[in-house]
């Protein structure tokens, strides 16, 4: 069924006495949505950063297979290579829009930046793409010249998503993309992400502590605790037939997920 898009083997990372990652093996296939769930401090955000090459593990390696099928050791890539990947093949949606957007630049400029980084030098084209993407994330394209601060938290997340998707990435990392938003806003955003992911056939690694979000979006769930994967598998099976004590606790803590 083809090779994984990204695969990590035996990732180890310590912060002093804390084992943030303790022998983690994980993989993702093209078009697959994988949720990494766990409580704060479980290592889930650290895992995401290591997978995305934003943090270096003490041991283990992460392999990324590009569109031509060539495998790249993410940690061994030069910084230029990693940045190139991050603005072409990959995207990263941060929990805090401030970390993923340029707050002093208009919505259009924020979305257009990746196109310009990829070498697009046609103003009209960049602008049309930005407006199109605002529409696709259900923002009003007429607000293309407004800076992020004019938009609500939910809209800023949409903008971040548009900024990532404009260059048609193959793999998107999302760190609590709906964290800190109102429940109704979360639901709409999750729904939007769900639609885009299916439509574009994206592979997505997303970190969440929201079991409902994991159920709605994920094909597969990875449960982390104390830097280890304690359970992993088909999303509905992990949630409906959890084996590990911790997963059972996690699932039972949720009100009517």
């Amino acid at each position, binding site marked *: *069924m083809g090779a994984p898009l990204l695969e990590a083997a035996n990732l180890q990372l310590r912060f002093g006495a804390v084992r943030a990652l303790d022998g983690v093996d994980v993989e993702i296939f093209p078009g697959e949505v994988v949720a990494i769930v766990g409580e704060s401090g479980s290592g889930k955000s650290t895992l995401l950063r290591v997978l995305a090459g934003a943090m270096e593990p003490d041991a283990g390696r992460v392999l990324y297979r590009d569109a031509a099928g060539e495998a790249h050791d993410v940690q061994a890539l030069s910084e230029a290579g990693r940045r190139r990947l991050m603005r072409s093949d990959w995207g990263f949606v941060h929990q805090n829009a401030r970390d993923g957007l340029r707050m002093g630049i208009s919505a259009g400029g924020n979305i257009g930046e990746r196109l310009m980084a990829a070498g697009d030098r046609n103003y009209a084209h960049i602008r049309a793409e930005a407006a199109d993407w605002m529409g696709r994330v259900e923002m009003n394209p007429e607000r293309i010249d407004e800076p992020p601060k004019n938009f609500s938290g939910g809209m800023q997340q949409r903008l971040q998503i548009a900024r990532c998707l404009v260059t048609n990435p193959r793999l998107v990392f999302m760190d609590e993309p709906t964290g800190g938003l109102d429940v109704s806003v979360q639901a709409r955003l999750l729904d939007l992400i769900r639609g885009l992911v299916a439509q574009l056939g994206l592979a997505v690694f997303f970190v969440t502590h929201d079991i409902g979000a994991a159920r709605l979006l994920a094909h597969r769930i990875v449960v982390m605790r104390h830097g280890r994967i304690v359970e992993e598998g088909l999303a509905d*099976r992990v949630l409906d037939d959890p084996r590990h004590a911790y997963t059972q606790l996690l699932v039972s803590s949720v009100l009517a997920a």
Partner: protein
Amino acid sequence: MNAALEVQALNKGFTLHLQGGIGFQVLRGEALTVMPGECVALTGPSGAGKSTLMRCLQGNYGADAGRIMVAHRGGLADLAAADARLVREIRRETLGYVSQFLRVIPRVSARDVVAEPLIDRGMDPEAAREHATTLLTRLNLPPRLHGLPPATFSGGEQQRVNLARGFAPDYPILLLDEPTASLDAGNREVVIGLIHEAKARGAALVGIFHDIEVRDRVADRLHEILPVEDAA
């Protein structure tokens, strides 16, 4: 003829870690064979494990031991040992499931809920929506509801959306968990018709039917699930 679905020596139990780790066995050595064009109704006292078996057959519950062989892509796949991707592939192409309850996805219309598995199987989105409309109409869901998300629908309306979603793709294997539970007499007839058509095209069906009349009209044979004797 080869079986469409063959369950061999299936064991399934649960360990409740939050309740002091108590464990109980629901299925032990379960075996079941279903041929194409055949409809098997699961029977047995409530709590005996009919729903657990259905969930194992769907891949929603993991098996502890045994095999669930499914005729898939011209070969045999063991659902009990399949990884997440293979389960998804089997669900997409081979194995349909109609549950009692619709898991509502916010903001997705009834029509799109039904069309989604068709589009996943590669059907043109427009044709898929047309097909969805036809089925929903056949199940007497008022056209004004087709474009609305089913979250606010009544139990019977949601059930019909669910049925349409399950029957739309013509799966070779179809699992039916109380398909007529909240339906009126008219819609029950529609469902019986759909089941007969599915059998006629060679689908293998496994169902739990509390409605004895429906069961007797669609099932070719009964398969009884008995409670596992507590090992003393």
